[in-house]
């Protein structure tokens, strides 16, 4: 059925003109690439992705900060020697340090000298302190191997025998409290994260369904021209995957950028009052590669969630169309005679 059969050889320009007129535009997608519902859904997804990634990053940051505190404190133990009449404090300090260093898992021992002790007491007793005049306990700081800590019970027993005035403080009470606090903080953060993720899931699901309701007529037309359910579902899946990837990428990248920028500012303004205050309040703005990986995973989860919702909604719509077919009592969308 070629048109060329009707054209005579003496009309080449006319034939050329007709060929030009018959040019069709590149076939457009079955679903409109952008509409109000699609754009609104993209914005909703971007906002929810941003909030979810921000929460995820914050929890990751809190966890890292808590772990840092815990690590710093559990890296050292102190031996305190109380003054007593007739006690050679210098010899007791050296003996206690040497005893401690005989245990496997200790790395270094440092006796706090008079100046350091005076500096520790300065806030309470003021400057110009003569330690010889006061019965002030003295400290030995022992650095330990965190991964292979010494046997504190044996060390405590040995010190009690050899230097009765010595008292070993392994900071266990502090570490336990700190661990508890860190766990609570992370637990609260995780709770918030779950709430934000739940809100995100529901928002994305309802926004996707809302956007789909505006395309119900397309589903019906495709169904009535003989499209199989899987074909219709695939078309919608592709469409909503694109929308959700764009939205989730925008929100996720914005959150990642925010953390990167805060980290950069903190690094550049180290030791300034503003930075110190921010560090004291929020810790360091470092979320590490696991944090960024989490943000990436969140983006993927949102994209998958939108796609699956779109698929399920389309399949359900088609099912409803078929339900009307098998149940004449349901007349939704039927035309009047």
């Amino acid at each position, binding site marked *: *059925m*070629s*048109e060329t059969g*009707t054209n005579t050889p003496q009309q080449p320009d006319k034939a050329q003109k007709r060929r030009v*007129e*018959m*040019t*069709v*535009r590149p*076939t*457009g997608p*079955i679903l*409109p690439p952008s509409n109000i519902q699609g754009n609104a859904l993209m914005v909703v997804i971007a906002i929810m992705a941003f909030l979810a990634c921000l929460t995820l990053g914050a929890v990751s940051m809190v966890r890292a900060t808590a772990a840092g505190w815990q690590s710093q404190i559990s890296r050292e133990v102190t031996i305190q020697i109380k003054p007593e009449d007739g006690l050679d404090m210098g010899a007791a300090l050296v003996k206690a340090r040497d005893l401690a260093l005989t245990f496997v898992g200790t790395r270094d021992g440092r006796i706090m000298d008079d100046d350091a002790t005076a500096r520790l007491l300065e806030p309470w007793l003021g400057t110009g302190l003569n330690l010889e005049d006061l019965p002030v306990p003295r400290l030995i700081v022992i650095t330990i191997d965190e991964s292979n800590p010494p046997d504190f019970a044996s060390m405590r027993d040995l010190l009690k025998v050899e230097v009765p005035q010595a008292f070993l403080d392994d900071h266990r009470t502090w570490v336990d409290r700190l661990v508890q606090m860190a766990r609570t903080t992370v637990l609260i953060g995780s709770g918030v994260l779950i709430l934000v993720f739940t809100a995100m899931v529901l928002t994305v699901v309802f926004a996707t369904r809302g956007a789909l309701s505006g395309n119900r*007529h*397309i589903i*019906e*037309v*495709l*169904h*009535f*021209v*003989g*499209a*199989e*359910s899987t*074909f219709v579902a695939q078309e919608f899946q592709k469409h909503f995957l694109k929308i959700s990837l764009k939205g989730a990428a925008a929100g996720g990248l914005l959150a990642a950028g925010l953390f990167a920028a805060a980290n950069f500012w903190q690094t550049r303004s180290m030791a300034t009052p503003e930075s110190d205050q921010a560090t004291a309040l929020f810790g360091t703005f470092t979320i590490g590669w696991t944090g960024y990986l989490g943000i990436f995973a969140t983006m993927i989860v949102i994209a998958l969630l939108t796609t699956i919702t779109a698929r399920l909604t389309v399949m359900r719509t088609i099912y409803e*169309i*078929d339900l*009307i*077919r*098998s*149940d*004449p*009592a349901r*007349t939704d969308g*039927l*035309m*009047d*005679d």
Partner: protein
Amino acid sequence: MVNASKISAIRLPFCGHVYRPLTIFVYEPQTSDTSDWAQPLIHFENVGLRYGMGPEILRDLTFDIPKSSFQFLTGPSGAGKTTLLRLLFMSLQPTRGIIQSFGRDITRIPRSELPMLRRRVGIVFQDFRLLDHLTTYENVALPLRVRGKEEGSYRRDVIELLKWVGLGERINVLPAVLSGGEKQRVAIARALIDRPEILLADEPTGNVDPPMARRLLSLFLELNRLGTAVVIATHDLALMDQVDARRMILTDGRLDIYE
């Protein structure tokens, strides 16, 4: 008056052009079962339908839609024409009675097989149901696209069909700028593009002026001459008077057939 069963050759003048009659090779209906030509495409037997607990909209309908037949379906508003078309299109099931489409009881057809059977039926909706973001060409090509065909394999057929319905110069136009008659022809072309065995048209001339209605009727007659069974639901008595064809008149849910 034209006898629908004795038309030999009709040339369809559209937009000032005279197009060649289409070859049967291109638009012959895709009949998968050629062994039993006597079997009707659709058979109704004592069919009744009611919505919920309401009265029966359709009562005791018994008739056949034979292959290559041409019929009008008419009756007053609310008589059940659109409902009957929906039954013919398998988008409704009867409350009682038997409907056999292409030799199969429609109540026993699994959902997954319905799209394949619907592909053998072309339907023209009263409200056209064109997709506004697709061009005339893309709307007409839609049934082929959903069947997974490559554009290269159907491009020429779609353009030829659009020329045939007088829309050769409007292939890249969106439905929003088409007139009612043009939209109607796009909807008809979409229903025809995959060479259905039966065409169902709901008030196809309801939105067009009398000359355009005659043109569309000529189009249906030409299609029927090429082997497609045609059912036209209409109120338009003047249109029916132009063709000596079977009339199915629905009144209060009952059907009278005048051969």
